[in-house]
């Protein structure tokens, strides 16, 4: 029983991180109707920037404070993501406005390739470490209930707290600030939003910036966990079934979908995996999403798809 809970909690924590990446997808899709395939590349790019800046800045300015170095690196990486958002809006989205969703998807595929190559050209392509002082030692919980207790990695715990804080901050941003309100208006109806004077182009830049920040946070957390390397982009591929499960247009869907996928993946790997020869983590979430698609094409929490002729 203790093992079951351990797996469950491990899955939940992985799920939080999936939600974080999925959130980036959902934000952009809601606001601009673009299915941003480049989210994974953005995670890698942001993590690379963070890792390298935190290495370069202290060396360049000649101080030796890890906290200060990380802080400056984070701010610089965030600024880089803002610049990226601005460039994407100017060079990719604006010329493609009013195109079909599939065209935009393919354009973001192009952005993905560009960003992968660009990031590795300027930041290098080996494995880098992000050291933000996450504790590595595990803690034990509920030792009185189960024999040996439940083992939880402190790192995962902090990561989920950070992720939860980010989600809360985003919720406040979307619900309480005027920019957030404008963004929700754009998400609801482009034309209506434009007709009451909301500048669409600026909103798109803002939403890409927000997605860039979530990518940065996700990249920092994943990067400090498994190291910053090219395989980080696969994290984004894992987040795709999350949004299918939760619904492309639903922020709570992204979070709950992420948790479901995280838990389902870990539990299936441990309990069903041995029957299939292991490694079913890779496709389990996709097949799960596929089954949901067949029954509910709009996902668990998505808006019902209505085709008007």
């Amino acid at each position, binding site marked *: 029983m203790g093992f079951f809970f351990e797996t469950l909690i491990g899955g939940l924590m992985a799920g939080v991180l999936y939600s974080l990446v999925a959130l980036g997808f959902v934000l952009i899709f809601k606001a601009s109707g673009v299915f941003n395939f480049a989210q994974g590349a953005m995670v890698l790019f942001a993590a690379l920037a963070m890792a390298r800046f935190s290495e370069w800045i202290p060396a360049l300015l000649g101080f030796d404070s890890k906290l200060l170095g990380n802080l400056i690196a984070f701010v610089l990486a965030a600024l880089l993501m803002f610049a990226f958002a601005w460039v994407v809006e100017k060079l990719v989205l604006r*010329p493609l406005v009013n195109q079909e969703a599939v*065209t935009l998807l393919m*354009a973001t595929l192009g952005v993905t390739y*560009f960003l992968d190559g660009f990031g590795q050209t300027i930041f290098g392509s080996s494995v880098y470490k992000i050291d933000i002082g996450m504790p590595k030692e595990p803690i034990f919980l509920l030792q009185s209930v189960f024999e040996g207790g439940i083992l939880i990695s402190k790192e995962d715990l902090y990561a989920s707290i950070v992720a939860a804080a980010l989600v809360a901050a985003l919720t406040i941003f979307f619900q309480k600030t005027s920019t957030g309100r404008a963004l929700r208006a754009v998400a609801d109806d482009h034309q209506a939003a434009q007709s009451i004077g909301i500048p669409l182009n600026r909103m798109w830049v803002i939403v890409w910036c927000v997605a860039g920040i979530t990518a940065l946070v996700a990249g920092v957390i994943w990067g400090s966990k498994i190291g910053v390397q090219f395989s980080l982009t696969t994290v984004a591929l894992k987040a*795709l079934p999350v949004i*299918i499960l939760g619904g492309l247009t639903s922020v709570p869907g992204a979070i709950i979908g992420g948790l479901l996928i995280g838990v389902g993946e870990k539990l299936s790997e441990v309990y069903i995996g041995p029957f299939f020869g292991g490694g079913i983590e890779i496709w389990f979430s996709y097949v799960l999403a596929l089954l949901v*698609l067949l029954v509910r094409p709009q996902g668990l929490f998505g808006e019902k798809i209505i085709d008007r*002729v």
Partner: protein
Amino acid sequence: MIYRENGQFKVNYRADQQIFPIAQDRFFVLGLIALAAVAVPMLASDYALKAILVPFLILSLAAIGVNILVGYCGQISLGSGAFMAVGAYMAYNVFVRIDGMPLIIALLSGGFFATVVGVIFGIPSLRVKGLYLAVATLAAQFFCDWAFSRISWFTNDSSSGSVAVSDLTVLGWTINTPVDKYLFCLAFVSLFALLAKNLVRSSIGRQWMAIRDMDVAAAVIGIRPVYAKLSAFAVSSFIVGVAGALWGFVHLGSWEPLAFSIDRSFQLLFVVIIGGLGSIMGSFMGAAFIVVLPIFLSQVLPMIGNLFGVEVSIAMVSHAEFMIFGALIVWFLIAEPHGLAKLWSIGKQKLRLWPFPH
């Protein structure tokens, strides 16, 4: 001046509906095939045949398959690599497990199994479309990647996980040298290209295009969406599967699942976008582009680097390749959404009026 149809009168329906109605086009295609079949094997070096022409032909074939699904029927697929893998591995199993199996039948059976898998993963297309379908086809990709690396039956229980074929013979003709391989692929590709060209201008091709342009309207005028979509998936994955089998058997010789990873799917999609969505000719152009560009860059970039006194490493070239591909995709989507094929047809239009455009 030369390219115009003046004076070519069609007096019966047969002549009017033939595959290349303009005589100059007919001569051009025949000349191209003759050139490819006779002149190229004599002139091209072994390296050019092995590293450029064979991959180009097989990728063109795969791109034709993807084009039928994405370009003609409008169902976006990110799982083409998986269908190639199914074709390659099932052809391998049929070839190795059944004694005396003829090569051609093994390759075609690879296509057959790819068809089955393609139709199964095409079923979601009846419920969902666009972005959701893209993710659904990704499921095929990940599932096949896993199946071919984990289930040892597919690899004939080979310990390393990679499989190899040898002794490729067709009716006593041993396919051994690069020239043999090239001619074998050329025969397959020209046959399938002709087949595909005829298919897309027949009634079923028109059904696919109607579904692509507007599925509700197509259903209203009596096209069955289920039949049209699944047949597009079937034909597309058959061709892609045969291309996968050729890629494994003829081009690679020995391969592992990595040869058909998700990057292959993206590559095929890029071929189709750059070449031109909804064009058989474009599939060839896109494939040529995507095969030649990396070779071109790996030659030219170090030279440019030398000019400025910078040492360009192999890693830098491969990153530059990524960047250039990505930028080109975006540029093509913005500037010429119909790809190289559209440029080709614009050129032809211009040529009809040249040199007196008024």
